[in-house]
């Protein structure tokens, strides 16, 4: 234990067990008084064990039940966070995807003009499926915007509700 004397560990164990010096033989006591390493070992251990005993009298402990209750609360919160983490990811992805598609739609509107977007496209598509395909695009854009707005709003709502 000390790296100095082979008997230092024996001395330390006696002190730790409260058997020093009464529990030690004359030979060991004589050795400790002559051996620097062992006497240092005995004095340090005695001082620290004494301080430890005094600390035991000084400490005012919180009730175990209070610590237990705090641990339970934290454990439940951690478990709840673990469960809701995938849902948060889904909500974040939904918001991100909605924003991305909204940007694409705005760009599309910018390129083709707002006049090309209208319910007339559906009528044309119904009358002549092949010829009306081009104008159908405009109506689909509006439908997409409405669906995305609804999905995005729902995702943001759940996200905000969770944070709250």
């Amino acid at each position: 234990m000390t790296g100095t004397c082979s008997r230092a560990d024996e001395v330390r164990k006696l002190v730790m067990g409260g058997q020093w010096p009464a529990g030690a033989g004359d030979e060991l006591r004589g050795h400790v008084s002559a051996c620097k390493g062992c006497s240092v070992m005995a004095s340090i251990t005695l001082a620290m064990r004494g301080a430890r005993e005094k600390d035991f009298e000084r400490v005012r402990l919180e009730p175990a039940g209070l610590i237990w209750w705090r641990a339970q609360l934290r454990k439940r919160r951690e478990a709840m966070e673990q469960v809701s983490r995938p849902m948060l990811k889904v909500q974040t992805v939904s918001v991100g995807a909605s924003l991305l598609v909204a940007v694409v739609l705005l760009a599309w509107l910018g390129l083709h003009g707002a006049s090309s977007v209208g319910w007339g496209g559906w009528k044309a598509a119904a009358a002549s499926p092949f010829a009306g395909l081009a104008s159908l695009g405009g109506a689909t854009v509006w439908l997409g915007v409405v669906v995305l707005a609804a999905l995005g709003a729902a995702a943001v709502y759940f996200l905000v509700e969770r944070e709250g």
Partner: protein
Amino acid sequence: MSWELTLEQRLQQQAAASELPMDSAQFAAFYERSARPLWAYLSRVSGDRTLAEDLMQESFVRFLCATHGCDGEVEARRYLFRIATNLLRDHWRRPVASSLDEVPEAALAMCGAAAMSAMDSEAMLERAMAKMGLRERQMLWLAHAEGYSHKEIAEVMDLGATSVRLLLFRARRKIGQLLENGGAA
């Protein structure tokens, strides 16, 4: 259907995860036996009783929340001391807190100036401990107050056993000299 199963599984996982590794009666017994030694360790190493109380409570809460399984009370207590040691280290690393290496001697003397002037063994120990480095204080306390072996100290402090042997030898020599001089350098 698969969503329902996943949700059900998740709720079961949550219920299992929110269970603590001990029941309240077991914990109360463990706390009664371990809290005082842990407080003494934290208090003597940090030199701050209030901090020791805070870190002790946090150590027990983290111990209960950890999924680490312990075989028996000896291992559980060692694990608890390891948590406390890590908390102390984290506290020292915080930039806002002053380094305890630089804390004046008076702050580490827990019985005040009167006790410091008294040359009893406790006051001498406090003076000597105040002059030791943090790691030295931890090692000395674990070895001499708690009776931990080199291997156990290495485990608690996350160091190699060989390093502990050497560092403890030096720390012991240093504190031995300090105690010889009544705790003063």
